[in-house]
């Protein structure tokens, strides 16, 4: 979908979030990539990993030192960057781009190690299990491990220059609801933990998440009923729950190659009994089945347009269509998506 007709192009600024409520307004890629932390969220199957990887490629191309974090740790993000499964330590994928995968158990040990200088010991396992139990019931600890690690990476400095190690951290969040509890964890934890060493840590992590200049969210959706409804609800809950900013919604697998009367006319003429045989001879097969392709394309265009309208009506942010890439997931697909994003995020 090209830029909506008659809509003046305006550059988007974070401080005027309300103004961006105007449908179809654009967000500049440079503005987006100027953040320190970008959480990529959305329902399963909406292409979160591919979008995270594509944004990471674009940021690295722009000369930023990028860390891409996979919270789900199913290896999808690494695969989308053409790398074998990564571990808990940042693993260099290409110049300026590293990836790491979070797993709760390791995160917990690392967390204790980083913040409280508790050695990584196996004899802590019973404690880890007690925590695991509390973490299941009490909001916070488990989710805090995730945001805690991210916040830690954000704060990391080069030992010599004291410059930040990463310019941008991109987080491929776990599916919908989980991402929400990760992001809301600090706030929830602050109401619960009134003392203890953790509180101070939680306070600055909470501040980082709420600072819209440093931290934002990218919402992924598909032109299908449930993913659209959930994207709208997720946006609301993220804003209310964690106070995190949501900058842009990427509508993946958007169909936007319009079927015109010229296409239809060709189709009708090719299948006309008068020409059908000659056409089949010349093309090497009957043209009749091709109509299904045109019909499906027209249907997908309609569906995409309808869901674009719905999203634009309900989301106070630009909604950017990302075309369907037929390739299997992998670096090739990611590159294609990155190219599409860079042309569409003006």
């Amino acid at each position: 979908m090209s830029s909506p007709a008659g809509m003046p192009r305006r550059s988007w600024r974070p401080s005027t979030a309300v103004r961006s409520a105007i449908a179809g307004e654009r967000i500049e890629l440079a503005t987006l990539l100027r953040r320190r932390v970008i959480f990529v969220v959305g329902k399963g199957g909406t292409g979160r990993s591919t979008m995270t990887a594509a944004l990471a490629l674009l940021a690295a191309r722009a000369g930023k030192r990028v860390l891409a974090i996979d919270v789900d740790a199913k290896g999808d993000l690494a695969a989308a960057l053409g790398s074998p499964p990564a571990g808990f330590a940042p693993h260099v994928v290409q110049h300026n781009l590293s990836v790491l995968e979070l797993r709760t158990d390791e995160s917990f040990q690392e967390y204790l190690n980083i913040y409280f200088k508790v050695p990584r010991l196996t004899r802590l396992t019973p404690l880890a299990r007690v925590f695991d139990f509390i973490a299941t019931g009490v909001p916070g600890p488990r989710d805090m491990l995730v945001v805690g690690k991210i916040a830690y990476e954000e704060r990391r400095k080069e030992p010599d220059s004291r410059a930040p190690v990463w310019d941008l951290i991109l987080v491929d969040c776990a599916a919908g609801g989980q991402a929400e509890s990760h992001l809301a964890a600090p706030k929830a934890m602050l109401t619960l933990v009134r003392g203890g060493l953790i509180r101070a840590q939680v306070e600055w992590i909470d501040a980082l998440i709420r600072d819209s200049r440093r931290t934002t969210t990218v919402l992924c959706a598909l032109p299908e009923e449930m993913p659209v409804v959930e994207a709208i609800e997720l946006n609301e809950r993220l804003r209310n729950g964690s106070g995190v900013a949501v900058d842009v919604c990427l509508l993946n697998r958007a169909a936007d190659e319009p079927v015109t009367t010229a296409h239809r006319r060709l189709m009708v003429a090719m299948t006309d009994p008068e020409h059908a045989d000659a056409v089949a001879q010349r093309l090497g097969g009957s043209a009749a089945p091709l109509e299904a392709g045109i019909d499906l394309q027209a249907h997908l265009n309609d569906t995409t347009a309808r869901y674009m309208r719905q999203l634009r009506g309900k989301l106070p942010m630009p909604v950017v269509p990302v075309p369907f890439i037929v390739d299997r997931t992998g670096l090739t697909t990611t590159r294609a998506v990155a190219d599409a994003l860079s042309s569409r995020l003006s």
Partner: protein
Amino acid sequence: MSGDETARVPERRRSVRKEPGGLGRRLGSLEVVICCGSGGVGKTTVSAALGMAIAAAEDKRVLVLTVDPARRLATALGIKGIGAEPVRIPKARLRRAGITITGDLEAAMLDMKQAWDRMIERYSPDRATAQRILRNPLYQRITDSFVGSHEYAAIEALYELHDAGEYDCIVVDTPPSRNALDFLEAPSRLTDYVGSRLLSLLSGGPSRFGFRAMNYAAAPFVRLADRLLGAEVLAEVSDFVQQLQLLYDGIQGRARSVYRLLRSPQTGFVVVTTVEQGPFGEAEFFCTKLREFKMPLRAMVVNRVLPDVFRDPGGVAAATTLVEDPKVAAWLSKELRLRVSADTARFVGSTFLTRSTLAQREVRQLARLGRIGDVPIVRIPLFSEEVSELEGLVRIAKAL
């Protein structure tokens, strides 16, 4: 999408002109049908359509128990809203939409909060314990965040409904999970959770003096936890846990009965998936797990399969020529006496080729399904209409 546009696609119609009775009849003798699969594969829709197909094939009282988070199912079924109380779907409306049901079709929506509250009330040894748990601020958190808590609520509701015996057949739409296994593991996980020794550790065991009276060996851990989290948190958790432990016997007993029901010959699992890699892989995994759990897989429904027309070899050849042959546009212009630009010809070819590439991939993937065992595999073609319309639901019910 308008009606006449569909009429131009006879291929899509043909595949659904089957009369109801296939899967509806096969599953109609069961008392419980559980639809499982990853989120986003159309589980809710398929469950509703299955209920419809069963009620059409058999003179039975059928209940569809759904989670329908978008509440569109209610609209599609032509009723104002679905609540915890079952609502009957008017036969006349179904007939107008193209399906005649011999039985009775009702729908109810699962109320998670209510299911949990009732469970606490049922398993508590006395009212005071129940009240204390329900009032605990951690309770809501636990029921929300405990892995499999929604699944457990669904199973509980199913068990109760089945036990009451008001319906011949209950079709359950399982909650969208991160992991389809959550549903199968929920009862045992809850039992483990409530009965775990760690819980006793935290709650200070039967002495009921709170965590300060905790096991001596655990003391260093508790001190550390205390330092990290602050004392109040542990005190609150400990109190909650003590109460929860009183429910253990009840929950354990129920878990056993639930597993008996899930494994019984009156129960059948239907795995719903799409051909996309993620959900498909998970569905395959789930099928093997069902076998491990000794739970009966009765059918697999593959949703949104591209219609066969996209695998037509003649079509592929024609589309390839349109895309690759630089002289084809000129030839077409002359033959058809119509100005055909190269772009137009290429577009008509490429829209078909794109889908046909996907369709080939789908075939390879569907071929893998032979390995899951001897169960019917039903393909539902990708329809060009929205299934939130009743007619769409009916079309799927017929395809089943």
